[in-house]
């Protein structure tokens, strides 16, 4: 690792301290609304930290999902809480005040503190020169069909994990469908500024998503990031009061949500017929297949994220 310039050093220290401070004030905040805002700021600062750690892929994902979409989902949930007027956490905490609770809390906190100290202690025993599987990835990247090692790992070497991750997202959607039944208390009003912003930003976000998707084979980007940006565009539209037509909410919606997982199943099973392994791409068409998979996954991820938001904030009981 090259030596840090003084400026970078100051930046890192500030980022680290800022992260700790934001985390602490988010957790200890008595006001839920403020806690959510601090959570979003934490996510943004965290993505800066990832940039400094030279992990642009994670930085993008953190900004889009950790800060953006999670923040929107938290806000939408907040609007549904019965005490959203005050958004005060004290009412929620009253259950904790039982006899002996303070002693237990002290015990728990000191245990956690000791554990944190041990984590810091153990970090000094990690091997200083860490390469992980970088060498193995570097030797096989020629056969992977893409040049970005992160995409190669996600869509080829460990594509099976990514497939299961897509199912996790699908599971979340199924789950929200079950719990997101009650109508929201505060209805969303459409505002002119928001309308204009949405109509300007949505096309741009779609372009950004397409760019992220395309660049993913060579550099930082890929299906999850692109899907998150696409989802953010959808959330913006929903916030501005746009609602899809009812006819689209049934089968067309469901087919599009399933596009990513279905494409994966198809690509995974096809090699089995010719005696190869699950998800084993033919070497010469690996690149094309990965791009196709990514397009399908992006659309599904974007739509699923939108649907999660729509379900959480559904004001007239729409059910995708």
């Amino acid at each position, binding site marked *: 690792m090259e030596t840090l310039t003084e400026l970078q050093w100051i930046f890192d220290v500030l980022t680290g301290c800022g992260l700790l401070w934001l985390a602490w004030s988010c957790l200890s905040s008595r006001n839920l609304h403020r806690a959510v805002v601090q959570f979003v700021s934490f996510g943004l600062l965290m993505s800066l930290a990832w940039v400094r750690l030279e992990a642009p892929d994670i930085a993008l994902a953190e900004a889009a999902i950790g800060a953006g979409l999670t923040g929107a989902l938290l806000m939408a949930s907040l609007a549904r809480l019965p005490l959203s007027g005050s958004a005060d956490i004290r009412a929620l905490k009253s259950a904790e005040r039982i006899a002996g609770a303070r002693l237990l809390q002290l015990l728990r906190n000191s245990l956690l503190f000791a554990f944190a100290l041990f984590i810091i*202690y*153990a970090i000094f025993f990690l091997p200083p020169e860490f390469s992980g599987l970088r060498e193995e990835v570097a030797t096989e990247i020629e056969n992977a069909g893409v040049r970005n090692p992160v995409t190669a790992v996600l869509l080829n070497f460990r594509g099976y994990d990514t497939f299961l991750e897509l*199912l996790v997202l699908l599971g979340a959607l199924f789950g929200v469908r*079950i719990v997101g039944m009650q109508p929201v208390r505060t209805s969303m009003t459409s505002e002119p500024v928001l309308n204009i912003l949405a109509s300007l930003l949505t096309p741009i976000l779609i372009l950004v998503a397409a760019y992220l998707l395309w660049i993913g084979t060579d550099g930082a980007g890929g299906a999850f990031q692109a899907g998150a940006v696409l989802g953010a565009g959808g959330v913006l539209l929903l916030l501005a009061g746009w609602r899809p037509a009812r006819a689209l909410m049934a089968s067309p919606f469901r087919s599009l949500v399933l596009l990513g997982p279905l494409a994966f199943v198809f690509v995974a099973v096809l090699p089995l017929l010719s005696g190869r392994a699950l998800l084993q791409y033919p070497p010469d068409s690996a690149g094309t297949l990965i791009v196709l998979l990514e397009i399908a996954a992006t659309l599904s991820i974007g739509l699923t994220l939108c649907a999660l938001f729509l379900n959480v904030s559904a004001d007239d009981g729409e059910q995708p």
Partner: protein
Amino acid sequence: MAPMILTLPWGVALIVMPVVGALACYLFRRAAKPLGLMTVTVTALSAAGLALRTTRADSYHHAVGGWGAPLGIELYADGLSVLMLVATAIVACAISFYAARFFDDKEQARFWPLWLLLLTAMNALFLSRDLFNMYVALELTGLAAVALTALTGSQDALSGAIRYLLATMLGSLAYLLGVVFIYHGYGTLDLAMLGQLVESNPVTWLALGLVSAGLALKTALFPLHFWLPPAHASATPPVSAALSALVVKTAFYVLLRFWLEIFPSEGAAPAQLFGLLGCAAVFWGGVQALRARRLKLLIAYSTVMQIGYLFIAFPLGILLAWHGALYLLLSHALAKAAMFLAAGNVLYYGGHDRIADLDHVAQRLPLTVAAFALAGVSIMGLPPSGGFVAKWLLIQASLDTGQWWWTVPILAGSLVAAAYVFKVVGFAFTQAEAPQEAKLVPVSMQWTALVLAVAAIALGLIAPWTLTWLDVGDPFSGAVSR
């Protein structure tokens, strides 16, 4: 026929089939029930195929993507995995056919996609040998299980589900942090490779602590069981059966794998701790089950107790003890599913599960009471049930290793279990009026519970074969040579 059994990719089918089923059930929600039943049957056949294959040949390998470890992910099944997969298939089949009658049309459409995703996740977990892949599978298992807990959308179910969600997420994150340290320390995620590389240093201890704590939370080992009773008692009966019989075992399975492959050298002190917590779980779960006023809460606390038994194997650490723990796990899976399904019949018939008023119900549902009693025989550990064989093996192991004191909780636990089983079964012998608004229970629902209970008993009779089969691929060799 023989060569086909050896060459077909059964393990892959175990994962792909339920996925396709889940997607199809979501897409064609009107036909969810027949699609789901078909999928579960085909998946069970694949499990049988894999089982046949491993009895004829050695353990099963499949390098996903053709890369192989450490770069790619390998599917792997030895006797231990196959037994878990087969148990999952049997219980899943029973629960599916039960659920097909239990739920109304609206609930069917919500149940099947999630249930098949849960099945996918559990199969994927039992076939995995890669630490991160196990994390993803655990995550999918947890998420699907939480969503299923909330299926009815009632207040109780929602609050039970959200507690469950927070506990299971915390457990997964602790596990993931442990895996991060292992990967950074040793540069691979493959269990078998790590077994060769791992050495005793603070990084390993930290990983051991994080992984064990996270998984103990997920498998509800005392005192981290707080989330289990509300979740398992408030879910609908078929879902409770799946949660108690299968889902808590997934985390135990991962912990067992870690223990057998990576941490055998870290032995003594943590193993003793596990044993002590196991004893505490046996007593606490037993006492709470005795105190419970609701049938499903009683069964849920009984799960807390039975999980305790599994952890008594850790301080013993010889082959007999692992066999005992595994046998307990299998017979508990069958018996506990039977118990919850029986409780489901009671709920269906009388509309409540208050133990004090069970006499109105018990005499009208003889098959259900029989199922509950037979499952109780296995839970208590009376011969010739699977539970008996398990406890026998555990006691034998504690005498063989000169740690006779572990026999005390094992035997005392059986007495407590007998007490709470008879607390329920006793009602079958008192006279009472039929309840006002009785709803006839479909015969198939009654038989499903009974078949599972009989299977739990029969497990005791086929023990010699099952135990030989468990040793295919020597899953316990790492820990036993210590």
